[in-house]
């Protein structure tokens, strides 16, 4: 177990270093001189030179990289060229908005999808199975922005139950904050539940065919316990992998939904910063989302042995 843990941690560290290099190089590959982009066309050569010196842009790339890594390790991601804000607090603030929505939505999606998938598998080829599968397919084929817009139209405009525009932080007004995230959470949860239902159902069907399920039934174990104790733990592996991948993806990019619901999340920050060529912020966003992705996959990898004792034997 300790070996497994060390191996996974080591691999995550390697991945993170590669991510850091990639992010750094990618930004440097963008054509154009960063200094002249920031100061505009009217800037003189002397002004540019001062800026380059201040930002270390006159140094060779490897040296720049070392400076940058040093700063990153000290928690300094630079300042936004657009607003002059420090990048780290900015992206953490925005990330928090996205993270709350994504995590709540995913938890809901899992809570819906696992029982639904198990039930459909248990009743494979029956009418209820057909209905569950149809609904799941429908959900996963609907574009998120469209479902979001429909939600806004119905609950925001027609019924007037929930606000249509804006966002309030949780530390400002908890109840109002909730009212702003209900619709995005619901939209995201429904869409992700579609994929998860399909996955949970498919793995559960595989397991239901196996003889240990027959063995459990032959012992007189009730159907409910067969599903909960024998099918679910064994079928959960593939679903867990999928949850990890989905979470990673979502935390890096629900820009579309954030735009539809006008939420100040990290996806929108990234898109806006790209348009504004605000490279420190872009760099920070990329680094953060990539790290989150790596971390989530690490957590998923560490969770496998909890569900399947065979995994720990590497």
């Amino acid at each position, binding site marked *: 177990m300790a070996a497994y843990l060390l191996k996974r941690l080591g691999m995550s560290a390697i991945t993170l270093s590669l991510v850091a290099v990639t992010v750094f190089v990618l930004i440097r590959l963008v054509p154009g001189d960063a200094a002249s982009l920031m100061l505009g066309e009217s800037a003189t050569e002397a002004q540019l030179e001062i800026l380059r010196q201040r930002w270390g842009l006159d140094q060779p790339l490897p040296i720049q990289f070392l400076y940058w890594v040093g700063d990153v390790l000290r928690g300094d991601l630079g300042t936004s060229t657009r607003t002059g804000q420090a990048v780290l607090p900015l992206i953490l603030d925005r990330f928090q908005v996205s993270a709350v929505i994504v995590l709540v939505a995913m938890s809901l999606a899992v809570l819906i999808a696992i029982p639904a998938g198990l039930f459909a598998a248990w009743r494979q080829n029956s009418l209820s199975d057909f209905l569950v599968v149809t609904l799941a397919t429908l959900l996963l084929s609907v574009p998120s922005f469209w479902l979001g817009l429909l939600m806004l139209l119905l609950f925001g405009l027609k019924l007037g139950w929930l606000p249509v525009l804006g966002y309030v932080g949780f530390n400002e007004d908890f109840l109002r904050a909730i009212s702003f995230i209900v619709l995005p959470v619901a939209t995201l949860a429904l869409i992700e539940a579609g994929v998860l239902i399909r996955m949970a159902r498919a793995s559960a069907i595989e397991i239901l065919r196996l*003889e240990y399920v027959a063995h459990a039934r*032959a*012992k*007189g*174990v009730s159907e409910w316990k067969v599903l909960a104790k024998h099918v679910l733990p064994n079928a959960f592996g593939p679903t867990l992998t999928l949850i990890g991948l989905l979470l990673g993806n979502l935390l890096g990019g629900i820009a579309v939904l954030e735009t539809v619901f006008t939420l100040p999340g990290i996806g929108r920050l990234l898109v806006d910063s790209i348009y504004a060529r605000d490279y420190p912020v872009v760099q920070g966003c990329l680094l953060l989302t990539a790290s989150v992705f790596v971390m989530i996959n690490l957590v998923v990898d560490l969770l496998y042995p909890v*569900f399947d*004792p065979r995994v720990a034997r590497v």
Partner: protein
Amino acid sequence: MTQDMPLLRIENLEVSAPGGMKILHGIDYTLDRGTIGALVGESGSGKTMAARSIIKLLPPGLSITGGRIMLAGEDVAAASLRRLRQVRGPVAGMVFQEPMVTLNPVMTIGTQMAEAMRLHTSLTRDEIRQRSVEMLERVQLRDPRSVLTAYPHEFSGGMRQRILLASVMMLRPKLLIADEPTTALDTLSQREVLDLMLELARDFDTAVLLITHNLGLVDRYTEHTAVLREGRVVESGSTASIVRRPANAYTKELIAAASKGDLSPPPRSGANRQLLEARGLTVSYRNRATGKEFEAVSKLDISVGEGETVAVVGGSGSGKTTLGRAMLGLVARTAGTVEFLGKEIVDDSGKANREARLACQLIFQDPYSSLDPRQRVSRIVREPLRHVPVMSDAQKDERVREVLGEVGLANFGNRYPHQLSGGQRQRVAIARALVRRPRLVVADEPVSALDMTIQAQVLDLIRKLQSQHGFACLFISHDLTAVRRVAQRVVVMQAGRIVEEGPAGRVLDAPAHDYTRALVEASPSIDPQSKAASAETARPV
């Protein structure tokens, strides 16, 4: 009243598929308290469906559409699921075929053993634990306390089957349904598990219903038998009378397939020259967890002459499969040499081995995974000819047709593997091996995945083709009945070494080594010569 009734009486049982197609057409079967009976038949005979009907564990879609199943005085065919759950376990327990998938891989053995006890008894946790330990001791597992906290993947197939047996018998059921309980095990573990099972059954006064395709086992262990074919009982009665005086033609065929071949192996064809010869052959693996070297094959000398059939026998883990692969250079050897017609085979896929590779072919055990499901039979068989430049396309087509004809599949060239039965698939595998007219064929358990009568047919086919084309054969098997039919010489392997070798007749009829003797004794074949003798000694009364 229930005292005079048999424990199990199946009357006119019908099971049907969703479309109304009948799987079982009125089965009758009776089993008395504490006795041992068998349902015998080949795949598709309905024996498993009949057995599963008793506790209504039919696959989805299938249902009981007629008849009664009286178990301990109650019609279980008509019982509710709630009532059935009280029957499953304490009244009728079941042991399944595949020990590798019958235990839940993510639950400890202790939890799984306790599951049924918690359900059906009011014992405390500690009492259940105590009983579990006792049961594991009875099935001869070492250190039962640590077994309880271990997971299934830490045990071999034979050990898992004993764990399963312990957990089912712990409830002291009145009836034990054993569905091919040892088919997935090698001959030695098979014997151990069955002996244990019947000993427990006798001690607990449990009746046993053995479901099997193996008449050798039926003859050795059971008192009465029903032979099933295509969902009907074709013959039933006392095992002794069925095995010695079968009335039905199909039963006779089954018995012939399970008999020690009075067929002597075919005479060796070809010149008396060594074809493939290994000296000091060693293959070792390193255990990744412990870093220890493990020798699967250890300093072994073996040779196959031209036209000769050499059988390599041994239990699972004896290294026989590794030996076969190392002989062909498919597994890298750690030490030693292998020569083909005096030229060394190197562990390399380069040109050096070309001649040997062209002349040696392999037949695999499992015909379900050794054929590409997306290729038609003719293409599968044609593939080995791809690197024969001297043949024109027309000649290749002609050769494929010829070989398919030889294996009795003349009109099957356009089919896909899934459209064939297990026996037909193995014929395709044989055709594929023979299409290039090899001088040596390595056959790794070529019939152990097949039904008994099909096994006999496939073995006869190999014999016939061998006398026709004179290829040599390295026949790897744990099944001595099969070995008797084809081999002139037998090599017995245990833990990577040869413990005995010699002419087939001598080794199998008068084994000199203890391990060989154990293998021969465990081998469940019917010996028509010593009729009652074996039956009397082996059958528990």
